[in-house]
């Protein structure tokens, strides 16, 4: 569905993408990882037709610049940094819905599922929302369009664990043949969402691997942690993950999203020496 051949993008003499070849089939969920300057955002912008380039990029056999509207009708995009739009939230939703020929109510419903009630903030300028609210709204606009391709740049970065769990659930409900391209600095943020990992470094693909995709994104894990002593900083982190502290202050219980398991375990690993018991049970 997405074919990239010998893609080169340079800014003056600085070559950002170096003869990149990539083929993405329907149903592939890809983690696009790499450090800053690896070329992730540039690659996304070439796919979206926002940059000119040498080489070939085609989406469903269409050129993203020559058939711009046809191509972009099929792509839902969530940027890494929310744009500083002055327009009210209601106007942004209205504009996006009309341009993308979708229903405003659909976007508003997804926003609500993500924990963002649009009605009270409809007249508020977009740039005055909190980081999490902006992210939720942009995700809702992208997902509300029912596109066969989703491109998301660090989509879960500003979301709280509950909103992340809902996002994973919504992504899980997308048709099986939906393409997802999720860009992130860290694999653990998105590992459970994908079945393929592509790592970029200085404009070339250094890793392209299929990964196990038997994780149910909508699944929940029951989690119990017991520590051998009270650790305030970790307790705060666990409460942020919506885990409840017991009377003794050393046991925490709650639910986490199945797709968040790697991210959660990497947090727990930082306090491994204080950990007495851990239990994760699929619900």
């Amino acid at each position, binding site marked *: 569905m997405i074919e990239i051949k010998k893609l080169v993008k340079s800014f003056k003499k600085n070559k950002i993408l170096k003869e990149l070849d990539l083929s993405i089939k329907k149903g592939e969920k890809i983690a696009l990882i790499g450090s800053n300057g690896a070329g992730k955002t540039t690659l996304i*912008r070439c796919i979206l037709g926002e940059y000119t380039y040498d080489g070939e990029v085609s989406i469903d056999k269409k050129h993203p610049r020559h058939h711009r509207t046809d191509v972009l009708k099929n792509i839902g995009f969530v940027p890494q940094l929310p744009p500083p739009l002055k327009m009210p939230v209601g106007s942004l939703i209205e504009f996006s819905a009309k*341009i993308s020929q979708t229903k405003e109510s659909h976007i508003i419903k997804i926003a609500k599922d993500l924990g963002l009630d649009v009605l009270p903030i409809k007249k508020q300028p977009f740039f005055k929302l909190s980081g999490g609210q902006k992210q939720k709204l942009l995700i809702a606009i992208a997902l509300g369009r029912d596109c066969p391709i989703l491109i998301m740049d660090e989509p879960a970065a500003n979301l709280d664990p509950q909103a992340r769990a809902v996002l994973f659930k919504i992504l899980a409900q997308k048709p099986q043949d939906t393409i997802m391209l999720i860009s992130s600095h860290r694999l653990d943020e998105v590992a459970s969402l994908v079945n393929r990992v592509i790592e970029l470094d200085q404009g070339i693909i250094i890793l392209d691997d299929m990964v196990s995709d038997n994780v149910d994104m909508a699944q929940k894990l029951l989690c119990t942690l017991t520590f051998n002593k009270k650790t305030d900083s970790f307790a705060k982190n666990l409460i942020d993950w919506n885990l409840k502290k017991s009377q003794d202050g050393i046991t925490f219980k709650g639910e986490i999203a199945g797709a968040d398991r790697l991210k959660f375990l990497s947090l727990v690993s930082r306090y491994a020496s204080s950990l007495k018991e851990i239990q994760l049970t699929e619900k």
Partner: protein
Amino acid sequence: MKQLIQTCLLDINESIRAKWFLVYSLVFGGLMVMLFAFGLTESRVTGFTGLSRLLITYIQLSMAIMPIFVLISTVRSLAGDKEAGVFEYLLSLPVSLSAWFWGKMIGRFFTVFIPVFVAMLPVIIIGGISGYDIPWKIFFFYTSFLISLSWCFLGLSMLISTLAKSVDVAQGFAFFLWLLLLLLLDLIFLGLIMQQTSMPNTVITIALLNPLQVFRTASMMLFDSQLVLIGPAAFLILDTFGNTMYLIWAIVYPFILGTISAVIGYITFKRGDLL
């Protein structure tokens, strides 16, 4: 067409919430209030009285203020939006580049033209109620000149915004352009050239190509002014072209200049990186 209208409405929506629009509207509204308050309708200077006197002062001031406001505010917001990631997001939506570019330009046109125009309306209404003779011919032509001049500077701003890579460069270039056109006004540089050398054709060409000069000469003509206010180049032009031809030129030329600049801007925008 639907996309163009949506983009146009989006730009109007964004503009009326921006600080520049508030300042811009206050400047022109305040200007009219001040002119009224200081009794310019009653004064008699170089042959102008009543509302004509007020309008001519407003014209002179708007000629100085409007172009720089249009240039700076447009390049700042367009180049700024590009830098801040607004384009990255909005251009990821399925909107065609032509609808985006021209929708933005038309939307911006309304936001720069309407405050200047609306500021004149109460004066005409109050003037009419108070029993002044309303100079309708002047009002009609002046409105046409304003439309043409704001479109012209908007086109130039769109071109600068697409060519410049950053807000600073765009702003610097816009300011330089305004200064250059101001310098080439009849009473400043052109007058000097006329006095020191004898190149009337060159001087007339420069004067005819400078949209500020064209606007100024044509608007002064409307008041049947004494030619001392116009300057030597304008005097020669009027002598050569005649009033009617010059009025047509003053409406058509800035509009064409703005359109050509915008078309070049659009082609550059379409062919290059959008961000």
